[in-house]
Structure formats: structure tokens, C-alpha cells
């Protein structure tokens, strides 16, 4: 494939925008789409991150935008895996400072 699919960028930006949302709206999104795990907020986003260098090469994202998106992904990675299960609950979306940090970084990535 010569070019990465633009749809992947669209999905990545949408997933990024969802990470900016307040907890209530994030929960609403998960329930409305029958997504059983809070993990999906991160998984839907992180799926597109490996393509980000291609997006930059295509000129679809600036390096600064890409860096900001990678920073969001890095924050999610720090929250992931064994020992962090408590962060991946609906209640954690409301109260965990880690999620506030993700929202801050995501908003920074969206708005520049």
C-alpha cells in the first residue's frame, strides 16, 4: 500500500477526541456502543498510534501533533497492565487523577 488509509486517521482522531471527554460522556459512549470494557477507550485509540509516523510522512499530521498524540498514548501505557486494573473501571474514570491527566493531554493534542 502506497498510502496509509485516511480512515485510520479519522478513527484515531475520533478516539483521541473521546479521551478528552468528561467521565460521564465517556461512560455514555461506552454504554451506547455496547463496549464492555473501559479498556476500549484506550484500545480504540492505541490501535491507530502505530500508524502515526506514516500520517506524518504523508503530511496529514505535523510532527508536533504526532508528538502530542504519542504523549497521550504514553500516559495510557503507564496506566495499563497488571497492577493497574483499578484504573480501568467506570468509577475510576470519574475519580482517578490518571484519567484527568489523559484528558488534559488529549485535549492538548486536539486543540494544539
Amino acid at each position: 500500500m502506497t498510502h496509509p488509509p485516511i480512515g485510520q486517521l479519522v478513527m484515531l482522531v475520533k478516539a483521541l477526541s473521546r479521551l478528552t471527554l468528561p467521565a460521564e460522556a465517556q461512560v455514555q459512549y461506552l454504554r451506547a456502543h455496547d463496549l464492555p470494557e473501559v479498556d476500549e477507550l484506550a484500545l480504540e485509540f492505541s490501535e491507530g498510534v502505530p500508524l502515526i509516523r506514516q500520517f506524518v510522512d504523508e503530511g496529514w499530521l505535523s510532527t508536533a501533533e504526532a508528538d502530542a498524540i504519542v504523549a497521550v498514548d504514553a500516559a495510557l501505557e503507564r496506566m495499563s497492565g497488571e497492577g493497574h486494573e483499578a484504573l480501568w473501571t467506570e468509577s475510576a474514570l470519574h475519580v482517578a487523577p490518571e484519567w484527568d491527566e489523559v484528558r488534559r493531554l488529549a485535549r492538548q493534542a486536539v486543540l494544539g
Partner: protein
Amino acid sequence: VSSDTGFVGLDPDLARDLAREAGAEADTAGHIASEVAGILSVAEVADNGFATMCGEVREELGLLRNLLEAKATEIELAASGVYIPMTAAASAALWESLSDGTGEGVDFAADLNDEDATVTMSSTVAATALATYLGWLGDDDPVDIYKLNEIAGNEDLPPEVRAAAQYFLLDDEVRMTVSSKPLWNATREDLEGFVASNAAFAVAAHNYTQWEIAADDDRTPDGEMSPDDLEEVANNPGRYGQDQSDAAQWLIDHGYYGWEQPAGLTWELYSRRIFADDPELAADWLRQATQEPAKYVAGATWYDTQGGREWVNAAVISSPDPAAQAEIVVGFASIYQATQPEPVGPLTILHELLDWVSFVDPTQLADALNAGIYWVEGDSVNAAISAGGILLPLGGGKAIRITREAFEGLAARHGDEAVDALERALKEAAESGGELTDEMIEQIVKDVGDQFGTTFGDEVGGILDDLRRAADDTVSAIEIESIDDVIANPHVLSGRNPAEVAEVIGDTPGWRTETLGRGSHQGQGWVLREYTPDGQPTGRMIRWHPGGGHHGADPYWRVTDFNTRSEPIR
């Protein structure tokens, strides 16, 4: 077709045809479809047996999903405050745009590629700009996505052309509305057709009061622009003027007449724009919209949730009359300022969008979607029936559809009480959750049977049960032979575990086995991701989550294609 589940609903004749084509595994479904044709217009819907034959439907479904996601994101952005508040300055900018001679409105939306989050242009303006640009180039090539990217980044081009390209690049909705197909397949002709349609609708709206009585002997406004009215205008350029006759003829030629439209107002094919030839009527309409909770107006970008939260996107407003433009802009601005942007329920969005879609697609696709949404929401069953029927999710990637005609048939056979009882039972089931379980079927049978003491309840319940079994049988009969099978029909993963899937497709060249990258189960699960020969991910992947999180959820699959991602499949 359900946007959430990928269910496909077909009428009985088509179901039988498909059954014949699909072979033995679909015979049961076809047989049942034939049997119940008098009562239920059914679609057996195993996502897979009919997949090949439903290719076009699936394509539409993918577009719809993109559309819904795009709209949902737009609303989410508004809810989170990312959306630009409509300030006095914004109102002024909107007015200025409306006055620039284009007659087009603008969307106030966050432009994610613009640090200052400026006003974006409307789809029609964008189409016009691009069509004009392509005309300058004398370029008859399709407008592919890469060309758009090239245009968007070419600083030698006029800014409106670059903005138009950027608009299309980021807006799934526009991709669909321009040509009802992905923009990368759109031609200059498509774009010009889009512009032409808007022009014809604008003329129709501006002259609505004359046109609606053109063929009516008593000259009494009846609120309907009938085909006869249009033909009268088209055939009498001396009376109505050549421009009006041409516009009317265009609408006739393209089949855009006879749709419902309140007096004084109409909306164009894609329901993105409200035309008003009378400021007072427009203002009345707006006031009415604000006073009726839970009322939404397709295409008006007007949302009024049942919780009393109101939000207006000051968008896509147009009128040929500057005075009307001003009134509408002021009206929308007033409403906006009187309300706070708050989250809008996704179902409200879906309703609005699906009605919107119904103007695009003249088939029963949108009606079925609408019916499904009504079902899921547990909203008015009557409204769902009016919209075309009820879609009953059966679980496991299957659904059936009961059409309006079916309910009319029920009424004819068993009386209105039977229909009332069934409607109540369905509504209760809908309000209790998404899927039609065995318990719900039993309850429906009981309620309907109790209501009028016949075996009708058993009849309905038996049919539903048979259909569900038939759908189950069909799904389970589908074998996975390649990754393409999974990409095309993610529901083939239903009920399967990673080991058995990996055994068949795990060694596909170009695909690598990985684990979940983020979340509570990082390093667990099963992921199959595609890479190019030079090691770049393509974005396509199949992943399995073990579940067991905060809700003790079951394991589930998700499949990501180039442009879409499946719903969870269990």
C-alpha cells in the same frame, strides 16, 4: 440493517431468492421467511450466509457507521466544550458568510487541523469550490483522497479550495452526501450534481408558495409540492420564469418530489439545510421546536433531548432571501444563547441521522435502521411502526424485522387489540435491554395470549423462536477459511475462541500475532495485525479481549478494517 449490529433485514421475496442462492445452509431461513410472509416480513439475518449477496448493503452500512461515528464525535466535542460557542462574533461571521452571495451556511465546528479552531465551510460551499477548481484544471479524473490531500496542502491554490479539500478529508458525512459513495470514487460530475441539486432546491424553496398551488385548481395552499405542481412549473416558463422551470424540471428528472414538507419550509435532499421563504414561518418553526421536548427535526441540526437539554448547532441554514437569512440566524443564535451545550444522547443523534439517511437512500435501509433504533431505545412503538417496522435483535449477530405492513396484517387478522398487546409487550421488552431473550419471547407470548385469549401469542412466539434458531444454525454453519472472511463478516467470530481462529488464520502471511497493547489486560488477549512488506502496520487487525473486567464481561472480538471497526462480537 442495524448500524450497531450489522444485521441485515430483507423482505420475504428477497429472502427466498437469497436462500436459493445461498444454498442449503439458508434453506431453513428461506422456508421460514416464506411461511411467515403473511405476518412478518422477515429477514433471516445471519450475517454471513448472505454476505456475498449483501455486499452493496454492507457498503452502505460501513458508510452509515462512519457517518454515525462522525456525528457522535461532533456532539461529544460539543459536550466537552471543544465545540466553539456561538458568540456574537461567530454570529457576525455566520451572517457575513451568508451574505457573501453563495447563499450557503457554514458550520461552526472545531477544525481539528486548525490551532485556532476556526469556522469551517459548508459541504455545499466545499463542493462548489472543488468543482470549480477541477473545472479550472479541466480534470476529469476521480477525486481521490490523495488528490484531496495534495490540494489541501498546496499553498499556491486559493484558500477556499484548500479549505474545501480539507473539509472533505476530515468529514465522513460529506464524503457520503456528495455522492452516496466514498469521495475517493466521486467524480467532478458528482460534485457538480451535488451543487446543482442544492441550486434546484433553493429555487424550489424560494418559490414554494407559488409552486405548491401551481396545479391546484382552487389555488389553496395545501402544504404539498406535488409532482403535478412541479410539472406545471416546469412546463410554464412563461409564467414562472425560465430559472424556476429549469429547477422544477431538474427536480422531476432526479425524482426529488413528493416528499413531506411543512408549508413554507423545506429541506433539500440531504436534509442538511433549512430553506425558509418566510422569516415569520421560520421563527414560528424554531419556537415550536424549542417547546416540544424530545422533538427533533431531521437535518436541522437541532437536538432537543428528552431530559430537557437543548442544543442547537448554528449550522447549515440558508435562504435566498437576505431578510430570511438574518431572521434565521438571529433565531438560531437566540436559541443557542438561551441554552447550554450539553451531551446529547447518542440515540437522539442516531434518530436524527437515520431520518437524514432516509432522504439519501430511497430503499428500506434507513427505515429498518430507524426501526432498530426505536426498538433499542424502547421509544414509541407506534412511531417505529410508522417509520417502517421494528427490528428485533436476537443476539449473536441476528435480527428480524417486523414491518408496518406486518402490523397492518395483524390488525386485519386479529384486530387492533392484538396489535396493541404486541406493541406493549415489545415496548416492555425493549425497555428492559437490547436483545430479545428467551424470557422476553415467553413474556411476549404470555402477554399477547392473555390479552385476547387466542393462540396468536404462541404463533408469534413460535415464529420468533424459529427464526432465532434458524439464524443460529446459519451462523454456526459458516466456516472461516481466510482472514478475508473475518474482515468481511466479523460475526463469523461469534462464539469462537482465539485458539480455533488462530489455527485457521494465525499464519496468514503479512499478519503478526500480538497481544492487547493498552488497558487492564495489556499483554493478554490475542491480536492479529497486518503489516506491509516493509513492516508498516496497515491498520487492519483482529483482536480478542478476554473480558472479565469491571462488569465481569464475557470475552469479545473486534475487527478493524481500513475505515471501520466492528462492534464487540461475543
